[in-house]
């Protein structure tokens, strides 16, 4: 067991867990932030994607020890009221079907827009191809990312 301090969605947290615990399970089971999803546990599906110091990472294979002193953003912290440009575009295009992978999709897209405010289709492919969707929302994800990129006022 170790005491790990990190910032999650702008708030400082100190958790007492084994330092090899994946960030995913600290978020979900220790802190109750269940918006980040478990899909594979092996960095194969991307449902657990969150931002670590602004980079999209797989929280299922990132240990909490490696998050010491860093800033984590989860889907719950992307905006206070679903007003991030991506969330607005996602709602406008009614992207989700079952919805389970969508937190990971949106967080990966947020990291993409932070570095490429107007991504090409190829850049979307590269950034998003590791985030699996079984329902078939891919065309709408692409459309919503382009839409969010063109909207003004989106925080990223």
């Amino acid at each position, binding site marked *: 067991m170790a005491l790990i301090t990190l910032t999650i969605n702008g708030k400082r947290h100190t958790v007492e867990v084994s330092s090899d615990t994946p960030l995913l399970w600290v978020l979900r089971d220790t802190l109750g*932030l269940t918006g980040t999803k478990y899909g594979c546990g*092996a960095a194969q599906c991307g449902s657990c994607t969150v931002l670590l110091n602004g980079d999209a990472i797989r929280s299922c294979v990132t240990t909490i020890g490696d998050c010491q002193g860093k800033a984590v953003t989860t889907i719950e912290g992307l905006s206070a009221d679903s007003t991030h440009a991506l969330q607005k575009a996602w709602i406008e295009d009614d992207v989700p079907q*079952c919805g*389970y992978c969508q937190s990971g999709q949106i967080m990966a897209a947020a990291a993409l827009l932070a570095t490429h405010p107007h991504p090409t289709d190829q850049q979307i492919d590269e950034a998003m191809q590791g985030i699996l969707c079984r329902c*078939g929302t891919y*065309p709408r994800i*692409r459309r919503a990312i382009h839409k969010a990129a063109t909207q003004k006022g989106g925080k990223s």
Partner: protein
Amino acid sequence: MNIPTNLSRRDFIKVSSAAGAGLMLSFYLPSKGETLGPASDASPFAPNAWLKIDTDGIVTITVARSEMGQGVLTSMPMIVAEELEADWKNVRVEQAISHPTKYGSMSTGGSFSVRGSWQTLRNAGAAARELLIAAAAQIWSVETSACRAANGMVVHPSGKKLGYGELASKAATMHVPTSLRLKEPKDFKILGKRFKKLDSPSKVNGSAKFGIDIRVPGMLFASIERCPVFGGKVASFDASKAKALPGVRDVVQIDSGIAVIATSTWTAFQGRKALVVQWDEGQYASQNSEAIWKSFEDASKSKGSIDDYAGDAEGALTTAAKKVEAVYRAPLIAHAPMEPMNCVADVRSDRCEIWVPTQSPQQVQGEAARILGFPLDKVKVNVTLIGGAFGRRLQTDYSADAVRVSKAIGAPVSVVWTREDDMQHDWYRPCTYNVLKAGLDNEGWPAAWLHRVVGPGSRGLVVGGSTPPYAIPNFVVDSHIEDIGVQIGAWRSVGPSQNGFVVESFMDELAFAAKKDPFEYRRHLLARSPRLRRALEVAAEKANWGKPLPAGVGRGIAAVESFGSAVAEVFEASVEKGGKVKIHRVVVAVDCGPVVNPDTLEAQVGGGIVLSLSSILKDEITIAKGRVEQSNFDNYRILTIDEMPKVEVHIIPSTEPVGGIGEPGLPPVAPALCNAIFAATGKRIRRLPIKPADLQ
């Protein structure tokens, strides 16, 4: 359209006051396969659906089907709201709690939710609208015929208007009129229009609660080590190392294996790794895929039991001018929904509460009651949002796990399967071995069609959708159902998922053998199936069938009627060096009768295509030493965003009865793509999934 309600008034729709005040309508939705005949005087009124209008104008309907991404929590309210002339902003939906009888069947499957409820939901909306109009007319002392309902209000030409909330309590005292006026489709404001799903906002901010997100006070987490071989049992186990891990609370043996109970999911997973278990692997310990295919091939040499036939196929084959024969193989495939199997159960001494992402809440309830020895009414099942299902969550193995563990430890518990558990203990789409023989007459038209199917599971899962829809005077379908020691279940689109591939690929072979255009060949043979023929024609027309394509690109077509809808698809494809398939265009024509929400329809069709393409272009489930060899998304790969083709969906305006839309888009995918590959390369795919080596 006017429909008499002399039955409805007494048997189908009941009016009462909502709790407190307001209007409550109770009505009856038929189950799958059930038709509503005249009720006898003796039969008690047993409503299974509710429409409530509160005094604040909020309209709530209770939905007894599960939401798994198909939009049922939105489509069913849309149907009511249309006839009710409700203000969509004020429409709410409530998920029903499981009840053994109150709702009829609560199962979500067979693309049945909308087609099973369409007429009744419209009737209920119309009945409520007429009650509200009658209430307003009485208040104003005017004729009901002078009043009309619009946008959540009743209005009168004089300018008087009253909102539904203001009228609800009064409406509850009125009688359902003797005949109901249903709206003409041309007057629809909601049905057939693009509406956003009501649950989508919760799915973009992390607030949507899936089964895996349920948290109950005092809840622990558990993970179960299962025998890797189906049907195997625990011989002995040593849990001392697992129990020594900080956070592990207990280790118990249950029917399905060894459960590690801990304070977090991760700790439970770690505890499993520390278990030492000796398995009795049982009779399937040496099962493997080659042996399964060999046994199917052997079985196919003898006649099976006849599933469907017309004329004398064997006789017609012997006298045919030309014969065509082929063997088709469809693989085992997994559901692999993104949310792994999970369930929360809280078993007390005299009752049990369950939270579960399920397509079968009543089966969950019945199974729990049986395990616990409780009466059904002591088991409460809450249906959560579902992170993908595709038929997997018709099973109750994962909810039984949670019930058994909670009972053993006396605390609420969330049992979470790992992805590996999910992949290796699924109920797989059956693998089938298909021997096809056809005889063509002098002009190339099929005079005989023989299809022998060998597969595991049940006849319905193996044979469903195998009857050719074409005018073939002599045909026979026979089958052998073989036990292979692998759990078999329904996979989105069920029998047609593999038989669409087999039938529509073989049809293409016949067209080729007859030297006829595969579209014209099918069209000619569908003269007596106008609905499927129309879908075929629309798909061909929209896809510019017959127009030249770039070198190396081929077009393929397939048409399948399933779950009450007719769907035809045209694929354009080429094969790159190395055997990789490239899809250039996908055109879909759908006739599902009246359309509730075209936006959802497109999402469902596109979704079916992605799910299907993963099973065609990626990996199959294989067995070695009695075990499923695939374990995670690295060796059971699914389509990624960069591989998703553009899909054009054309909805055919239709007056046909309402059909399903969750599944019918899938069956034509494999044959249309494989037929396109044949057109491009001359190589016929008779075994799925397609491997690059097949096309090099």
